[in-house]
């Protein structure tokens, strides 16, 4: 399999604080990668640098054969990168179906796939049905429960028809069965060929999902490999257990 995402020597500082240091990481097309690390280890910063929400000072990010450095967030989305946010950020004044409509109107359409209004409508409904939110299609996001909010977040990312989906802690605070729901969703997506990076604290979920596990601690990558080997790595144990 070919490399879809290639991060080379990436560095990011906030003033004097080094948030990310020499991160080198590659993700193959179709892979399911888990990214873990203690709070404040730079996981979300890494996502933000990949997706263009933050600008990195050092190193480069290549995606699907193109260098992303200098591209604005929406341009990266157009290229096939999608993300969900750690804290769900729905468009609060738009109904669920309209939330889903946005990536279809702006990302999928920008790739030259023209759909008639009716088709867009159907596609939105399909996506909502897939995450089990079709009954609330015309509600506003404020009517949703926490898990539904996460599902909406994922559905919106899926609507952009990405090659790579980065799910940033999309299971935090959910119950056992809710976690299972989200995992099933992600696996199904992966089976359709979408590469997925899962950032998560819930180890059970990460272990069952990931084919490969990467550990960040204090802005550095300390482990990268098969999940069962990585969790036995003494450095990883030390970072987690002190």
């Amino acid at each position, binding site marked *: 399999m070919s490399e879809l995402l290639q991060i080379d020597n990436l560095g990011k500082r906030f003033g004097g604080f080094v948030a990310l240091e020499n991160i080198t990481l590659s993700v193959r097309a179709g892979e399911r990668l888990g990214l873990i690390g203690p709070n404040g280890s730079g996981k979300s910063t890494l996502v933000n640098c990949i*997706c*263009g*929400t933050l600008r990195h000072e050092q190193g480069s990010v290549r995606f699907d054969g193109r260098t992303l450095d200098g591209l*604005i*967030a*929406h341009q990266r*989305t*157009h290229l096939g990168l*999608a*993300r969900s*946010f750690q804290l769900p*950020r*729905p*468009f*609060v*004044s*738009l*109904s669920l179906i*309209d939330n889903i*409509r*946005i*990536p279809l*109107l*702006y*990302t999928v*359409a*920008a790739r030259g796939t023209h759909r008639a209004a009716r088709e867009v409508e159907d596609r939105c409904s399909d996506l909502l049905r897939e995450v089990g939110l079709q009954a609330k299609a*015309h*509600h*506003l996001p*404020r009517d949703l429960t926490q898990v539904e909010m996460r599902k909406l977040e994922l559905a*919106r*990312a899926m*609507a*952009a028809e990405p090659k790579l989906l980065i799910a940033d802690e999309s299971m935090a605070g959910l119950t056992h069965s809710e976690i299972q729901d989200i995992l099933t969703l992600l696996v199904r997506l992966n089976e359709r060929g979408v590469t997925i990076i899962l950032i998560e604290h819930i180890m059970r979920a990460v272990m069952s999902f990931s084919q490969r596990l990467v550990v960040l601690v204090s802005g550095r990558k300390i482990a990268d490999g098969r999940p069962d080997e990585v969790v036995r790595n003494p450095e990883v144990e030390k970072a987690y257990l002190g």
Partner: protein
Amino acid sequence: MRTPLFVLIWLVIGGVLFAVSVALGNDYVFFAGYVVLQYVVLGTAWNILGGYCGYVNFGSAAFFALGAYSTVAIYKFYPLPIPLLLPISAVVSGVVGFGMGYLTLRLRGAFFAIATLALAVVLETLVVNWDYVGGSRGAYIIRPEEIEPIGNYIRYLFLIMLLLAIGAITVARLIERSRLGYGFATIRDDELAAEASGVPTLRLKLTATTISGALMGMAGAPFPYYIGYLQPSSTFGLDYAVNSIAMPLIGGTTSWVGPLIGALLLGSMQQIATVTISSAVNLLIVGCVLVAFVIVAPNGIIGMVHTYLQRKPDDFVGRRRVDADLPGAVP
């Protein structure tokens, strides 16, 4: 409803309005009506940036005045008919709107508002020191008495503003129902999430400032002919800025109906107060009504109506942006 039908209906309504005003036989109706319609345009224009995108522009007076002073500058050179002045003013104000957007759109909330207010001050200073358009002395424009075939010139101005108002609400409605409208709504809600969904936020915001600025400029273009004597301090006056914010807020910012209702309501109240009480009481009215609305109906009249309709068992929830929130309103 299709747009041509929408325009046609409003042209009929406008025609009836004009006919009734003529039938009343008092030209003061046209004087007062002109101002109300001018606020329909200003409120609608403000709402494209302020209501749809959530960027509060305090510099409406600057764009309005730019339109008015474009007219003065051209008049001093060669008096053109007003229908030609409109597009020129639109271009001037639109370009300034684009420039302002480019410089200030990295600011959000109160900071953006302050920057737009500053723009008004800067432009006023420029005009005050520009002798060609009269400087601080102001500029006179001699209004023709009559124009064929409409008759009294004020009727002609009223008619122009009427058409402009119909144009403005049509533009606003078109935006609302288009891809652009959805994009604007995402900017209002969450720019980070908008970018992540592929919305080019900067480009859309510049589109909004340009359209909004151009419409405000057009509202100002016939103004020198209306007022006869154009003076910087009143043309750049806070009245315009405050009114063009207050009217959409009172009507409701999420649809084209809001600014229309707000401007008709508040504009007429002000005109009536000017005649019956005093012209100075205008802004007091605006202030009181605004305070009342912020307390009673933070989503404006439209929001109030929607909340009322939602209590009924029909499917009004299905409508897009139901009582979508104003910037800063309590959900």
